[in-house]
């Protein structure tokens, strides 16, 4: 669904963020979308009055985007309240009103990641199998380098076949050092990497880890240990908290309601500080982010929109919502 972002990356990068200028974000959003040739081809342009059928259609959009029953019901309740308060009656106004309700929910999650607050700034990537951790690391390396920060990668997935080689390739593509070992101990590799980054005055260390399902208790214990070891290399000081400075949970946009369980489980185990939502270049909408925003909010730092080095975007709530609602009924 984010194909329009992909093709118009320059435009996206300069897309104005809301509330800065006088015009409402909806107006700017609409014109922005028109520019990308993606009109809000909405079912409400046909006019008429707001009725239950329209609410049903909106409910369908939300449910089929993986927003989930709870968040959908809450959003629709909020929407009805909004419609009453603003005395809306035109069908054409309803979708914009829903976008408004969604924005209230999602805007607080759009907090960018600041990686220049400590040196080295240590990021730990976690998530279930196949979510896109390693690929996102490749893209992040590029992202930070383009901000003028030096990067070092740690091959902490010591389980999956050729996971190390996969990360090493991303290291080569970015021309950054990858610390890897033959050993099967993730904590040891990452420990090494951080020490080496300290010695070389590297700005950002990104540690890969093996995918794991929250039901695998022993693996969840293992990753807690990895975090403890990281905090031992860079303990808390007077002016900085212990490493890791960011625990990024990677979520696949194709995931349904289980994403919420993933957020809860990984947060409970590790204290997740940010999310990356991958594979938004497909047809999946990633609406489960709305469920997460409601039940267990954590900042969404980036979205993934492809398999290439440049296919990483900051999470912009307005764009995300536009893509969510812009679908054939």
């Amino acid at each position, binding site marked *: 669904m984010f194909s329009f972002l992909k093709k118009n990356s320059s435009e996206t990068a300069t897309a104005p963020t809301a509330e800065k200028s006088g015009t409402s974000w909806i107006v700017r959003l609409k014109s922005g979308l028109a520019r990308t040739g993606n009109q809000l081809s909405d079912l409400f342009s046909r006019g008429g009055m707001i009725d239950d059928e329209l609410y049903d259609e909106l409910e369908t959009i939300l449910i089929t985007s993986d927003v989930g029953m709870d968040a959908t019901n809450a959003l629709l309740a909020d929407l009805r309240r909004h419609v009453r308060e603003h005395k809306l009656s035109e069908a054409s106004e309803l979708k914009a009103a829903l976008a408004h309700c969604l924005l209230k929910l999602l805007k607080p999650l759009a907090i960018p990641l600041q990686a220049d607050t400590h040196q080295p700034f240590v990021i730990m990537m976690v998530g279930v199998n196949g979510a*896109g951790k390693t690929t996102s690391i490749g893209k992040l390396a590029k992202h930070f380098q383009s901000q003028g920060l030096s990067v070092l990668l740690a091959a902490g997935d010591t389980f999956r*076949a*050729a996971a190390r080689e996969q990360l090493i390739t991303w290291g080569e593509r970015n021309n950054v050092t990858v610390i890897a070992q033959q050993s099967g101990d993730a904590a040891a590799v990452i420990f090494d990497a951080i020490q080496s980054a300290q010695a070389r005055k590297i700005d950002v260390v990104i540690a890969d880890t093996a995918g794991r399902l929250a039901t695998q208790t022993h693996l969840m214990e293992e990753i807690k240990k990895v975090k403890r070891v990281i905090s031992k290399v860079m303990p808390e000081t007077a002016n900085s908290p212990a490493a890791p400075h960011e625990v990024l949970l990677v979520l*696949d946009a194709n995931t349904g309601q289980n994403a919420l369980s993933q957020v809860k489980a990984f947060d409970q185990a590790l204290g997740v500080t940010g999310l990356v939502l991958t594979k938004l270049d497909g047809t999946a909408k990633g609406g489960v982010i709305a469920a997460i925003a409601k039940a267990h909010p954590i900042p969404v730092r980036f979205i993934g929109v492809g*398999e290439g080095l440049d296919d990483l975007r900051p999470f912009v709530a307005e764009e995300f919502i536009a893509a969510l609602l812009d679908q054939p009924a």
Partner: protein
Amino acid sequence: MLDNLTQRLSGVIKNLRGQARLTESNIQDALREVRMALLEADVALPVVKDFAAQVKQAAMGQEVIGNLNPGQAFIGVVHRELTKLMGEHNDALNLAITPPAVILMAGLQGAGKTTTSGKLAKLLRDQQKKKVLLVSCDVYRPAAIEQLRTLAAQLEIDFYASDISQKPQDIALAALDYARKHYHDVLIVDTAGRLAIDEAMMAEIKQLHAGLKPIETLFVVDAMTGQDAVNTAKAFGEALPLTGVVLTKLDGDARGGAALSVRHVTGKPIKFIGVSEKPNGLEPFHPERMASRVLGMGDVLSLLEEAQRGVDVQEAEKLAKKVKSGQGFDLNDFKMQMVQMRKMGGVSALLDKLPAQLSKAATDSKVDDKAISRLEGIINSMTPLERSKPELIKASRKRRIAMGAGVQVMHVNQLLKQFEQTQSMMKMFSKGGGMAKMMRNMAGKIPGMR
């Protein structure tokens, strides 16, 4: 995995309990619960709608006979329809063709194609004595070929080496040629993950299909997939003549509704499920069992089958006799029980197969495979006399046993206590109440649980 659905549906039964008969209105409520439960379980909306309509039709035409109550009758209908939707029986792979039989793997990025290719190769070799060749046509994802090469080496399966400078089509045809010349029975072709809307990549896999003429084309899909499963499955189903589906990562806690969506949209049977990252984590899919599991009956059938595979039948019979008599269950039997449990894949694998509430109770009480091996160690350092007459074990014997097993006396005490509990459970089992009662009591009393 589908346990949350199970819980919802338990609610449905409860709500219908006490109703005299199925009426249009009380079925309405139950149907809404079913719809909600399925949506929460990530079954795609259009599939939920179709399913609810089917259930309604079947239920309304249904007379409540005999001593079934309406709740049971309704659940019966849901169960039957769910089973029907999931495909009624297990479809095995069809490899009946002049070798090499080609299996083509297809699916989204990260679904589990490569891992499943390895698992499938192992399964076909171990269970059907097939000579298998693995090849990767994934020239895109970094180290994708290396991943399959590593897996093949680990499993000692033949691997046809390819390189990212080659075209997928060329790799595939060369591998096919190689398989023919080297008398392989099966060629498994791993492919790169692709989005259904990526036209170039979909054209590529169509071309692969045309060149390879696979007898099996398997769509690999992640059990955590949400609503978009219908769109993806539809697109892959239209691009390729799929012959089956593999549902991966069912060892997680995803509710697994994608199973229903994909099955409904493609009309193709789910042939296997992935239940672990390890090479032996591939199992045949059993629709009826899945439906039972959905409905909270637990996967008793799988459990039984697994027990048969892993457990020494004679030993088990001996144990059963003792259990029946309620007499003479000693530490030798206790130990054997643990050994059997280990053969069946450890406590955690076992628990997974039990009904929702029971396994939840059990997980809450912290199951621990390691604790089992410790218990075994302790029993091993006892004399035969002590094992058959545990009441002899007093302070000095306890110290000796603890030393021999490298544990603390405390642990020996713990073991003896667990033994006593198991013993009394066994007695209870023999007195009546049978299986259900034992299951109820098992959660707290299996050795290794605290």
